[in-house]
């Protein structure tokens, strides 16, 4: 069974149920249960029309629970009649789901969980495994999120920036479990790009594709981190790079720059270079200037300093750089100050936020200290 293909149907099926009169929370529950049944029974007994099967199964679930609810309350609900599907375009339903699930009123963690389930069609168990969190915790996040958005009007256009932020978060944390969150984020961004045609959506999609193209080369044996400069560029996925660049160029041509397009442009310049030395650092610095203007983020300033160091030499990079050990260490080493570089690498290792990063920086400190002993 092609599970990703099956999951592609999920938002459309939720859309059908909502159009037939189900509230979002019940529709989402019903589709999730139908999905779990499908994952269970389809391998042995595949249906001819997958979407029709899911709609029928989910609608039955919804009617069952609505009837149970109705009898609990001791009154009748008018859910028996099944209205014919109207001429409403499916695309609008799906787009509305994106905006609803990644609503600005939700905490980020809840928006991520709800998007992955209602739009991405992942089960609660899969999401929990991907984030190394107990299943009950994810279930709570989802049910709280659904309660939170229950009263929100659905006819207002949602906040696209929040939707993009959620997809970016999913992509950027795309690690644990057997679910490929990066791949999932790309799939959802692709779908969103088709639905909206906004240049920033295209920018985000291009950014993801360009980074995904380098995925196989980013880690070495035992999960050790391989920095950009040392990656085996012959193993970069040229198909993904070409696709990312094409999408990015079309987006940039529309002259509505945003942070994801600028980030994608930087990734494209890296992807375009045969070696670190051949990289067009001057143009990369210009894109970082745009990014600083768009976001003002301190992380962007740091990365800009690295690029300036490459473009104009380490001293230029160091000047005006906020104190940040890993970048300083890199630039000190390039400037020939090995003693200080080793200290700074060790300091950066102590401040690292992940195990591969800490190990990488510790290895760097050890490497520079070895140079010093020679």
């Amino acid at each position: 069974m092609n599970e990703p293909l099956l999951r592609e149907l999920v938002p459309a099926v939720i859309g059908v149920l909502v159009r037939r009169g189900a509230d979002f929370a019940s529709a989402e529950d019903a589709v999730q249960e139908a999905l779990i049944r499908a994952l269970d029974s389809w391998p042995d007994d595949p249906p001819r029309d997958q979407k029709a099967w899911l709609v029928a199964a989910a609608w039955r679930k919804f009617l069952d629970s609505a009837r149970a609810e109705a009898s609990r309350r001791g009154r009748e609900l008018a859910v028996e009649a099944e209205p014919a599907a109207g001429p409403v375009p499916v695309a609008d339903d799906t787009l509305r789901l994106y905006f609803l699930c990644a609503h600005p009123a939700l905490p980020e963690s809840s928006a991520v969980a709800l998007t992955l389930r209602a739009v991405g069609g992942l089960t609660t168990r899969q999401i929990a495994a991907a984030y190394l969190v107990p299943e009950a915790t994810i279930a709570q996040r989802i049910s709280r999120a659904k309660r939170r958005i229950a009263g929100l009007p659905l006819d207002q256009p949602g906040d696209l920036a929040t939707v993009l932020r959620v997809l970016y978060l999913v992509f950027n944390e795309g690690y644990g479990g057997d679910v490929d969150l990066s791949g999932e984020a790309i799939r959802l961004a692709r779908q969103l790009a088709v639905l909206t045609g906004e240049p920033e959506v295209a920018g985000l999609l291009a950014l993801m594709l360009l980074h995904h193209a380098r995925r196989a080369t980013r880690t070495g044996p035992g999960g050790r981190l391989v920095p950009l400069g040392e990656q085996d560029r012959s193993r970069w996925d040229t198909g993904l790079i070409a696709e990312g660049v094409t999408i990015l160029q079309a987006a940039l041509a529309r002259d509505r720059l945003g942070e994801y397009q600028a980030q994608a442009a930087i990734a494209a310049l890296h992807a375009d270079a045969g070696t670190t030395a051949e990289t067009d650092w001057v143009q990369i610095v210009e894109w970082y200037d745009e990014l600083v203007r768009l976001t003002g983020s301190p992380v962007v300033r740091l990365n800009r300093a690295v690029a300036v160091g490459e473009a104009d030499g380490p001293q230029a990079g160091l000047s005006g750089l906020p104190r940040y050990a890993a970048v300083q260490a890199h630039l000190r080493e390039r400037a020939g100050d090995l003693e200080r570089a080793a200290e700074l690498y060790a300091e950066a290792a102590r401040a690292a936020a992940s195990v591969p990063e800490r190990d990488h920086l510790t290895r760097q400190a050890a490497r520079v200290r070895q140079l010093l002993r020679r």
Partner: protein
Amino acid sequence: MAKYLLLKHYRGAPAPVNNIPMDQWTPDEVDAHVKFMNDFAARLESSGEFIDGQALSPDGVWVRSDGEGRAPLTDGPFAETKDLIAGWMIIDVDSWDRAVELAGELSAAPGADGKPIHEWLELRPFLAAPPTVTE
């Protein structure tokens, strides 16, 4: 989201404000304390922020390899160690501020006379997976 460890010490933390040991409380005070801890965990479960909570026995020994083919060495119980972990809670929250807020609430668990213990809890961020987008 980020995961944090809330670490509770038998020994090794600075003295709490309400510094009467648990075995000198009244049974009702002990019950109230246990109920507070359970309610706190239940609240985190329902807010989707709970990962794990465990308590450790104070008994334990040091274990060390004594070389290949030989039985490991044990030593202890560790009577004179300055630090002794009592237990932990692991949370998964949206921000550092939220982690501090929760640790603060947990530190105010009721102790003797039903007053908050105001004990020191150690709050430690987990090392996570590295991000995909790095430059």
